[in-house]
C-alpha cells in the first residue's frame, strides 16, 4: 500500500508555546531514558570497586561529562514541571487559554530556577 500524500503542516504553521512544550516533554522523556543507561553504568562502577569508580568519575568530571550531567538535570526539571501540569490537566484544572499561556511561562521559569538552585546546592556541598 503506497503512502498517501500529507498536506504540509509542520513546515507551515508556527507552533504555539503549548505545542512546543508538549513535544519537549516527550523529547526530554526520551533523553532522560537514554541518560538512565549512563547512571546504571555509573552505579555499576561504584559497586565494582575503586578502579572502576576512578574511570567513571574521570568521565563524569570531564567538561563533556559535566555538560551531559547538567543537560540531563535540566531535562529532568523540565520534564517534572511539565509533568506536574499534566497532573493538573488530568484533574481538569487550568484548561482555559489564558491560564495555559501563563503557566507555560511559569513552567519554563521554574525549570530553570530549579536547575540553578541545584547548581548552588552542589557548589555549596562540593
Amino acid at each position: 500500500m503506497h503512502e498517501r500524500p500529507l498536506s504540509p503542516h509542520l513546515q507551515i504553521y508556527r507552533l504555539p508555546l503549548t505545542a512546543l512544550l508538549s513535544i519537549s516533554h516527550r523529547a526530554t522523556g526520551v533523553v532522560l531514558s537514554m541518560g538512565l543507561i549512563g547512571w546504571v553504568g555509573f552505579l555499576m562502577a561504584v559497586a565494582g570497586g575503586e578502579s572502576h569508580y576512578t574511570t567513571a568519575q574521570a568521565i563524569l568530571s570531564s567538561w563533556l561529562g559535566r555538560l551531559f550531567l547538567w543537560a540531563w538535570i535540566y531535562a529532568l526539571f523540565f520534564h517534572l514541571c511539565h509533568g506536574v501540569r499534566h497532573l493538573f490537566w488530568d484533574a481538569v484544572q487550568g484548561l482555559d487559554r489564558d491560564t495555559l499561556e501563563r503557566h507555560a511561562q511559569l513552567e519554563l521559569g521554574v525549570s530553570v530556577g530549579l536547575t540553578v538552585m541545584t547548581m548552588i546546592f552542589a557548589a555549596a556541598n562540593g
Partner: protein
Amino acid sequence: MTYRSPLSKALGLGATGHGTRAWWHQRATALAIIPLIFWFAGAIACLPGLEYTQVKRWLATPWNNLLLLTFISIVTYHTILGLQIVIEDYIHNERIKTASLLGMKGIFLFLGLTAFHAALRIIFTN
C-alpha cells in the same frame, strides 16, 4: 447485543481494556517520583570530584540505599510506560512495533535489575 464482529476479535482489533490501568500507573509513578527527584538531583549534582570512599559510604547508608532502590524501581516502570507510548505513536508496522516494544521493555527491565543489583552490592559488600 454485542457490536463486535468475530473477525475483529480474531484480528485483535478494538479496545484492549488495559488503557485505564496503564494511565493510572503512569500518574501514580509520576506522583511518587516528584519528591524522589529532589533527592536524586541533589545527589548527582554533587557527584563530580567526589572520592570513592565518600560515594560508597553515602550509598551504603541504609536510608540513601533504600531511597535509591525505590527510585530505581519506580523510575524503571515509569520509563517503560512512557517509552511504550512513544513507540506506539511513531511505529506503525506491526512487526517492527512489536519487536521494538519487546526490545525496549526487555532492555529497561534488565537495566533496572542491574541497577538494583549494583545498589545491593554496594550496601552488602565491603
